[in-house]
């Protein structure tokens, strides 16, 4: 009995370690990549960030710019891979958070010296969504009040200018 | 009419000359990188 439990425990530990090694590919901050560009140049890196703007389709491939809070960088990937991204970040939307593994270039030969990542492994970590805009009631009130006030001043303004000027 | 014609010629002159300037710099860059 005891021996079987030991085996199960050891096996479980082994499996956990293995999967965490596979998943725990080091995620690097984009800013870190730029700071140590020479070290990371040509290396395989993993970054995680929000897809922003839109995918710029270029034939069989596409550019997807991602922002991880520290900075933003362009990912060059196959169009098919880009198409799995459904949400891109802008004013109204929170983009998909994607994890990208690929080769980092400080001076990409293919792209005229661009700082980029050529990737063929991307996964969506968190789907994006439409951001509900929260409008503070105070803002609406102040907005209306200020317009009304401005209009009052405006009428007063017009009246004053129509009047022939008095002497000093 | 002459005025409009001058404006169009002027507009294109600017575009062409600036493009030529950029081309010259590009060629120079190319030469420098080759010689390095």
């Amino acid at each position, binding site marked *: 009995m005891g021996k079987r439990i030991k085996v199960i425990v050891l096996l479980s530990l082994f499996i956990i370690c293995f999967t965490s090694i596979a998943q725990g590919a080091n995620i690097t901050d984009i800013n870190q990549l*730029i700071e140590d*560009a020479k070290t990371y140049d040509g290396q395989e890196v993993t970054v995680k960030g929000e897809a*922003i*703007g*839109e*995918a*710029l*389709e*270029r034939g069989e491939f*596409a*550019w997807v*710019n991602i922002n991880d809070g520290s900075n*933003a960088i*362009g990912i*060059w990937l196959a169009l098919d891979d880009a198409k799995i991204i459904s949400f891109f970040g*802008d*004013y*109204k939307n929170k983009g998909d958070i994607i994890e990208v593994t690929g080769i980092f270039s400080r*001076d990409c*030969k293919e*792209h*005229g*010296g*661009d*700082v*980029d990542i050529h990737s063929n492994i991307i996964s969506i970590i968190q789907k994006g969504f439409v951001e509900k*805009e929260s*409008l503070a009631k105070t*803002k*609406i009130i102040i*907005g209306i009040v*200020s317009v009304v*006030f*401005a209009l009052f*001043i*405006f009428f007063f*303004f017009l009246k004053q*200018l129509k009047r022939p*000027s008095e002497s*000093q | 009419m002459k005025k409009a014609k*001058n*404006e169009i*010629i*002027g*507009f294109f*002159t*600017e575009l062409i*000359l*600036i493009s030529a*300037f*950029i081309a*010259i*710099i*590009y060629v*120079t*860059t*190319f030469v*420098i*990188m080759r010689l*390095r």
Partner: protein
Amino acid sequence: MMITFKKRFYSIRIISYYTGYIVLGITLLMILPIITSLILREWNPFFDFTISISISGIFGMLLVLFGKQTRDNKSYVQWKHGLVVASLSWIFLMVLCAIPYWLSGHSTSFIDSCFDVMSGFTTTGVVLLQDLDHLSLGLNLWRHMLTFIGGQGIVVLALAFLVKQVGGAYKFYVGEGKDIELVPNVKSTARIIWKISMIYLFVGTVALWIDGIVIGLNPVSAFFHGLFIFCSAWSTGGFAPTTQNIMYYHSFSFEIITIIFFILGSLNFGLHYAIWTGKKRELIKNIETQSFFITSFLGCAFAVIGLAKLNVYSGAISAFRRVVYNVLSAHTTTGFGSIYARQFALEWGDFGIFIMVAVMLIGGSACSTAGGFKGLRVGIVFKGLIADIRKLLSSERNVKAYKFHHIKDNLLDDTIVKSSALIILCYIVTFSIGTAIGTYYGYPLASSAFESASVTGNVGLSIGITVPSMPIILKLYYIIAMYLGRLEFLSVFTLIGYVIGGIKKLWVKE
């Protein structure tokens, strides 16, 4: 004594009157972001701008009302009024136009909002605004509009369309650092500047729109990106709608189009006018374009050589897109960056940074949207030096008059050489103080110099110093440097002198 006091008080009314109209003119433009946000149902910016337009409008109207007696006494406007109106309206507008930024929540503080507005108006282009990628279209539109307006000249805008009387108009125009007289009538001159800009606005936006679609943007966003990037290029501002600036597009063709328009934008409006009215050779004969072509060519060449030595880039296209592009962007004081800010510090080396500082300070052409010493002054001082050397070497009986060609042939006399040299000196002092403050706070010398040159020359490239957490004194100084640089000192000095004079007069009671 009583008369003096009354005259001074009257001056305040004149200044108030015109400043008020300029404030109102710019305030009206807030309608555009309001409409945009309304159509796109961006409610927060809609209300942000509604509140701002109201506050700004009220302030402007009160200013005009305070000075309303001026209506009937317009001929009394003097030079000092013009200069003070120009410099004062910029300060008021900086605060008023910062309101929508601050309300949006994307600024870390109100000072940061003012910083971004001043950066826009002066067509500098350094950014403190956070999270650009999630900015509303209304606010993004406003940012780029500010560079376009500021580049044209806020006063020029007012002159062209609002001020009914021409009277002292020329004095306001000069107060903003433009002194080229395209046609005798200042109002017509202002209108022509706007006509040329509008035509290029159309052509440029369409060009970038089409290229945008070609490089993969969807048609609607390609239009807005095209519009914004054009405004930023023509005004040599350097703002872009996203965090990555021009790198967002990953496109050589897009970059080239921007180069064409930012170089054109950095040229003197008088030059455009001359070329567009048949004097094509002006583009080559003019001392400013000659100066620019020489210094920018040399700057690019040396930068490429310098960076090639450090093996920063391996190919010619890379060298062109990442070195030449940035040198041209810096020289025209645009500020579009095709590399990350930190890369300047990490990869360019001191020689590369030195070249950047030099071209940023030299700047673009006079009476354009560009900043810096201006090619005209550099050319004049250089020619003045040559002339002096020649005078020393030639026989005493030979009295030669030296000339330079700028639109027409002009006499290269001592007065003009002196005034050019003095303004260059002012720029150098402003730049030096900025560098000193940077080093005081611990930033490396090269980086401090780079950032200081960028704000003084209204360039907009950053080496990484400009962030919300930067020392507040440095932040405030950069705002002042951008302002001084753009207005070319005189009007600001006049404003300061006027204020000090006023305080003195009030102090010494009659």
